[in-house]
């Protein structure tokens, strides 16, 4: 028998769907629905929404299209919101995809902002052993994720290539039966890059991520090493990787130090000169060595926000002139803001990304919920140490209070202020940052540098998106990457 189509021909009265709002200083009100889709309203329009007295048919269409109101009895808005909400959370089912291996603490650099208690090159007792490496691979494969990324960190991982090779080969051996998508990344300063490393990277499809803080004098000032030639070696390494493996096989990350402030245009120009069209204007982290009194709070978040805004203004200007360049963090935010895709960036997820998006295996067999959790441990704070590969099973590591408590406490759906915040769907929980800076995984949001930073980024992006047609078009392109 043919099924009858049911049409909603007799809509009930108008009613609100869940929404949140924030006021803008120019009088507009930002309204976001349950999945973070947004609309700006005038004060009068917002009052009409609040009182459900929406006389303007165009406004009513907009608010219905944005799932801010529905006519009672309509099921489509509920189904669409549910579908979008579920899509945004699909990565949770995959579980941990990023597995970081600290193969050594040794490093020949002595960067002032380094978050790790690096050791001198001769101290091989700070290298990961083969036994620990194999146990870590075993644990990584316990994750149900169909995509496993193995990231080698240090110290300087090129100082312990033996273990980088072992982990890569062991993972590939195991994967012959498992059939997952594997990716390998070496996070290196590239100073020690040689043909053997390049041969290995070529054979096993390994990518490189390096540090580039900007122009030569700024970079070398931030990243001292014997010979004072960090920048020259990094650039030489980038060139060799591109020549041998291809342009796309190396990416760069910068860290904003006090010396970077006021130089954002020079830093962006340097990236472009070196052929990098993605730049992540990244503030220094408040962890590990970076917490030492001499380094601590070398600048406050307000200074970084000015730095970011100036940088973004310049990036938009460059794009308008035909030079493509992307600010990576903004692109991640815009993907969340303008699409239902979840880029899976650990700092912009809730529940937090610790453990369930990333795990870190330290050289000594300790397992941490994140890279930053390991950095805290280097200063004696073991809060985010989940266990030890030699003693704990995967189940024990992933179901212990050290992971589950901060995940639950920091969840933005229930955290003070976050639960009411119109930006919540675009933001994330960062229990490690708040623990490091305030002593608890939630922190007080008005005083939180994490919250202040993200609020400033969201407001900047929305201001440009609504005021500048070119920025709007560009932001949609970034979001679709």
């Amino acid at each position, binding site marked *: 028998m043919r099924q009858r189509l049911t049409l909603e021909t007799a809509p009930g009265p108008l*009613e609100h769907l869940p929404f949140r709002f924030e006021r803008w200083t120019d009088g507009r009100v930002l309204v976001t629905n349950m999945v973070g889709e947004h609309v700006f309203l005038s004060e009068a329009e917002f009052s009409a929404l*609040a009182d459900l007295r929406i006389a303007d048919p165009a406004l009513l269409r907009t608010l219905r299209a944005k799932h801010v109101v529905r006519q009672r009895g309509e099921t489509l808005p*509920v189904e669409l919101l*549910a579908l979008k909400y579920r899509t945004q*959370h699909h990565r949770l089912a995959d579980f941990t995809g990023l597995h970081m291996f600290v193969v050594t603490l040794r490093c020949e650099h002595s960067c002032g902002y380094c978050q790790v208690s690096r050791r001198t090159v001769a101290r091989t007792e700070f290298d990961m052993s083969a036994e620990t490496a194999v146990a870590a691979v075993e644990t990584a494969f316990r994750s149900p994720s169909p995509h496993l990324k193995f990231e080698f960190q240090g110290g300087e991982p090129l100082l312990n290539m033996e273990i980088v090779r072992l982990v890569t080969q062991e993972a590939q051996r195991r994967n012959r039966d498992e059939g997952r998508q594997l990716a390998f990344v070496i996070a290196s300063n590239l100073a020690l890059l040689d043909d053997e490393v390049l041969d290995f990277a070529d054979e096993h499809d390994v990518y490189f991520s390096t540090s580039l803080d900007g122009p030569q004098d700024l970079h070398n000032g931030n990243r001292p090493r014997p010979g004072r030639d960090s920048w020259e070696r990094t650039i030489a390494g980038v060139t060799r990787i591109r020549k041998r493996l291809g342009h796309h096989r190396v990416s760069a990350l910068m860290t904003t130090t006090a010396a970077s402030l006021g130089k954002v245009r020079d830093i962006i120009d340097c990236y472009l000169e070196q052929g990098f069209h993605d730049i992540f204007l990244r503030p220094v982290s408040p962890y590990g060595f970076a917490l030492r009194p001499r380094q601590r709070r070398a600048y406050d978040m307000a200074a970084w926000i000015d730095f970011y805004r100036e940088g973004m203004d310049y990036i938009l200007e460059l794009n308008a002139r035909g030079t493509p360049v992307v600010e990576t963090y903004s692109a991640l935010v815009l993907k969340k803001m303008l699409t239902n895709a979840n880029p899976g960036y650990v700092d912009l997820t809730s529940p937090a990304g610790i453990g369930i998006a990333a795990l870190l295996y330290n050289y000594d067999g300790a397992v941490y919920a994140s890279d930053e959790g390991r950095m805290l441990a280097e200063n004696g704070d073991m809060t985010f140490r989940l266990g030890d590969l030699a003693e704990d099973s995967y189940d024990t590591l992933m179901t212990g209070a050290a992971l589950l408590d901060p995940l639950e406490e920091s969840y933005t759906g229930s955290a003070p*202020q976050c639960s009411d915040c119109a930006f919540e769907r675009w933001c994330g929980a960062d229990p490690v940052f708040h623990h490091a800076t305030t002593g608890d995984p939630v922190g*007080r*949001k008005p005083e939180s540098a994490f919250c202040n930073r993200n609020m400033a980024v969201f407001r900047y992006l929305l201001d440009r998106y609504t005021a500048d047609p070119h920025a709007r078009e560009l932001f949609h392109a970034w979001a679709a990457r």
Partner: protein
Amino acid sequence: MSDSMPGRPDAVLTLDAAAHPADIVQRAAYRFSDVLTVELDRNGDTLVCRVYARDPQRLGSAIHDLRAEIVDQVLRARIRDETQDLRNLVLSVAFSRTGLAGPAA
């Protein structure tokens, strides 16, 4: 909250307790906790909100911001209460067939 706050408040707001539950005022005050702290006392139908400025020079605008935020928080609470069932419905549909939204034990 207790009356352990030292010194005299920098400002006092007197609110209709029925229209401004303590939870609403606390949520509003939290948003300005980098600028001010508050102490609440229920006195019959009145909620007395004593305000202590962290920086007295910023008190003037902070009080206006706090008042405006209290009004917004009243609206937020109304929307939250009105839409609670719909929110739960969306979440239950979103996580149905995932094994995460089974019947309560």
